[in-house]
């Protein structure tokens, strides 16, 4: 069945992309000028201790060998050891993934819930004031940086109304095994809102243009000619056709969402991957930087793969040939 | 010696056996004499457009050979096609698509004259301004049109600009691919009359592709009927329209809606 072949091709492309991405990350971090050991010990350090550090960190081995051992290790979950604390990167990073994951997951869930109805109204009522209002709001939302939205929310809800904490994070299940849902949500409301403002605005524009296109299609006019009202025709025949283009955007948007999360984590002092990544950059702990960036890129490539595969479920035309 | 010799030409799209594989042109042979007005008719998917694009070396046959002025032009390197390109010019179906919207009419019409390949072939007029005025006049367009953009002209005028472009390098052969199908009925007759006058005045050889059999009967002196990439029937117009040999041609002619005035 051709579907199997198409899926196989997509998996192959995913693996190749992952491999190329890992090579790019490794090369940028390790091949560029500037010696890690001197950076860590400071420029005044004497050459002997610098050379000793290089051996201990295995930096003296040829580039290819170091790359292969890094990738080999990753396959079994070992991403190497921190240059600073010698702690396993995986152990250091694992607890922080959950924080970023919650932030991104909530945003990816809520943004479409907001964008779909607003986008449809913006499309269907594009000639009346409701459509114009929806478009303008999404236009403004698009222009606000996520961290600025975060700061504004803090000023209003934390400083002003004092309803929510300005920053900090409480895990769903704290160290003593206690369930802390209220504190957990309280700490996530503002960060997720600031991400959703931007994400929902971006999605609204794509949903709007997808539905505007559907509204101009001949099959939509046929649907109305056989007796569906404008809105019911949109639900019966518009949504599935528009979903094809909207799904693409959700995939593409994950990369920008992850970036937004990294920045928002700093605004609200959330102990997520972003915070870990930035402190690793500050301390020149390059093996940690490599590891975290690899995780983030891996997440984006997985989502892109899932988006591609979901194409096949929605659009019957693609099922029998690998058309992009 | 014929102007065009097409022998056993086939064109397949997609590799044999794969899902999308289709044989657009299947073992077609025909010849075109100087001054002949050949009509190629057939329904969509009959391969008529693919055939003439191969004759104009815009597409290469999978097998078989096309000779123009006794030189092989199928599967020939672009830089060696100077003679063919300067002697054979095309008019396409939809003037909204065959004229570059970002170019003035003057630049569009004289573009062939600026092509290095055609200049090298030595058969192309060198004085562009004079040639521009000449060809615009021969298609009944005022010289002021040269500074206008295509979107400022009507459908009929745009098709005349396309014809002027085809005439600019003084070709021997004019290939018209559905030249009037995209035009309004009222403009169709004007363009057909223009084509007829130009072919007669310049002694051109005409190859016209159309799905409209009545248009071809009016303009062409000989016809090739194509179906699923093959030649169903070919011969002088009077014979093919008068006593068609193939059942398909008969069905085609019978399908043409006639004026049923009760």
């Amino acid at each position: 069945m051709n579907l199997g072949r198409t899926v196989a091709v997509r998996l192959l492309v995913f693996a190749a992309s992952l491999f190329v991405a890992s090579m790019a990350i490794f090369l940028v971090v390790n091949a560029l000028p500037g010696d890690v050991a001197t950076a860590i010990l400071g420029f005044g350090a004497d050459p002997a201790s610098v050379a000793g550090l290089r051996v201990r960190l295995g930096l003296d081995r040829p580039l290819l060998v170091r790359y292969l051992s890094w990738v080999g290790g990753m396959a079994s979950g070992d991403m190497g050891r921190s240059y600073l604390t010698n702690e396993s990167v995986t152990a250091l990073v694992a607890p922080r993934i959950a924080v970023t994951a919650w932030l991104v997951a909530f945003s990816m869930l809520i943004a479409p819930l907001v964008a779909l109805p607003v986008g449809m109204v913006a499309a269907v009522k594009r000639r009346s004031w409701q459509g114009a209002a929806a478009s303008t709001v999404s236009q403004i939302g698009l222009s606000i940086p996520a961290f600025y939205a975060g700061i504004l929310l803090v000023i209003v809800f934390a400083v002003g109304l004092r309803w929510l904490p300005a920053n900090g994070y409480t895990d769903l299940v704290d160290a003593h095994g206690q369930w802390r849902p209220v504190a957990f949500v309280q700490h996530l409301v503002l960060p997720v809102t600031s991400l959703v403002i931007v994400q929902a605005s971006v999605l609204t524009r794509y949903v709007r243009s997808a539905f505007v296109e559907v509204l101009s299609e001949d099959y939509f006019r046929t649907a109305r000619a056989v007796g569906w009202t404008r809105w019911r025709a949109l639900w019966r025949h518009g949504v599935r056709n528009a979903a094809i283009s909207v799904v693409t955007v959700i995939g593409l948007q994950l990369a920008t969402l992850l970036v937004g999360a990294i920045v928002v984590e700093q605004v609200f002092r959330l102990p997520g991957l972003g915070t870990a990544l930035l402190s690793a950059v500050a301390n020149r702990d390059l093996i940690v930087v490599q590891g975290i960036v690899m995780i983030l890129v891996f997440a984006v490539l997985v989502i892109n793969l899932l988006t591609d595969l979901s194409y096949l479920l929605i659009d019957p035309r693609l099922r029998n040939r690998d058309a992009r | 010696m014929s102007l065009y010799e097409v022998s056993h030409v086939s064109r397949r799209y997609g590799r044999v056996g794969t899902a999308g594989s289709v044989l657009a042109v299947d073992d077609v042979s025909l010849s075109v004499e100087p001054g002949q007005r050949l009509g190629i008719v057939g329904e969509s998917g009959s391969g008529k457009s693919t055939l003439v694009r191969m004759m104009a070396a815009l597409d290469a046959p999978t097998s078989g050979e096309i000779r123009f002025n006794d030189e092989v032009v199928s599967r020939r390197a672009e830089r060696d096609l100077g003679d063919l390109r300067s002697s054979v010019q095309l008019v396409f179906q939809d003037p909204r698509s065959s004229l570059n919207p970002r170019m003035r009419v003057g630049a569009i019409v004289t573009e062939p004259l600026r092509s290095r390949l055609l200049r090298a072939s030595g058969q192309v007029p060198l004085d562009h301004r004079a040639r521009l005025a000449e060809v615009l006049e021969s298609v009944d367009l005022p010289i002021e049109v040269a500074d206008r953009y295509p979107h400022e002209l009507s459908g009929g005028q745009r098709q005349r600009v396309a014809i002027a472009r085809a005439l600019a390098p003084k070709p021997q052969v004019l290939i018209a691919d559905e030249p009037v199908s995209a035009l309004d009925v009222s403009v169709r007759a004007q363009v057909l009359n223009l084509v007829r006058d130009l072919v007669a005045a310049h002694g051109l050889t005409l190859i016209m592709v159309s799905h409209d059999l009545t248009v071809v009967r009016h303009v062409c002196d000989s016809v090739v009927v194509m179906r699923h990439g093959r030649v169903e029937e070919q011969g002088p117009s009077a014979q093919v329209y008068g006593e068609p040999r193939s059942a398909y041609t008969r069905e085609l002619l019978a399908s043409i809606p006639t004026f049923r005035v009760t």
Partner: protein
Amino acid sequence: MSPLLEVTDLRVAFGRSHREVVHGISFALEPGERLGLIGESGSGKTVTALAVMGLLAENAYVSGSVRVGGRELVGLRDRDLAPLRGQAMSMVFQEPMTALDPTMPVGRQVAEVLLLHQHLGHGVARGRVIEVLAEVGLEDPERVADAYPHALSGGQRQRVVVAMALINRPDLVICDEPTTALDVTVQAKVLNLLDAELDAVGASCLFISHDLAVVSQLCERVLVMLDGDIVEQGSLAQIFNSATHPYTRGLVATARLDAVEPGERLPTVEDYYQRQVRR
């Protein structure tokens, strides 16, 4: 007997500038009668058809009166007009390749039209769909019903659209250039199909085309539209032999290519009628 479709002083304008495209046209259609609407692109013939069906874009301003089966349609809300469409009146469009929803099997799209206007079980509906697909001349209607639009040819898709338009036995069927995009052999078959099915259902038909010969296959009476006005109305014989308006005479002369000796100069519309707008 009161006419089935009665259009009085229909005006249609678009956009903020109220650019008028149809300038107050009037005509009537008796039950079971077939009326041809001839005109070139930009004559307003499609806008007229869409105005009757109430399918014009929102920025369209429609005035005058359109009465179908005695009911006034101009001014009705989409909610009130929708039940009539596909039931009392239906429409066949020009481009079969894009007329069907690419993500839904063809059979389900035909069944939708049925279930929208009649309360039937899915089993009964499926049977009725197969029946009507066979009626419009589709071999192996079972396979066609389960197929997606992209798997069917242009001719097959247009037959499905005709099936959708006729399945609820409407009183009025509007056809907007239904065979223009089809090959001449397929066109002949679809025109015969329409001729037979319209009689079988007893529906009247407003048939729009730029091609006089095609219209003469189905209609007894013809309206000629030019730049948003009806310039002439009459029976086929009147239009072909004794048209009063110069534009009509020009259209008839230039359409009859076969009446001219091959190679001779063709008559053009301009020989009969000078237009202000450059064509």
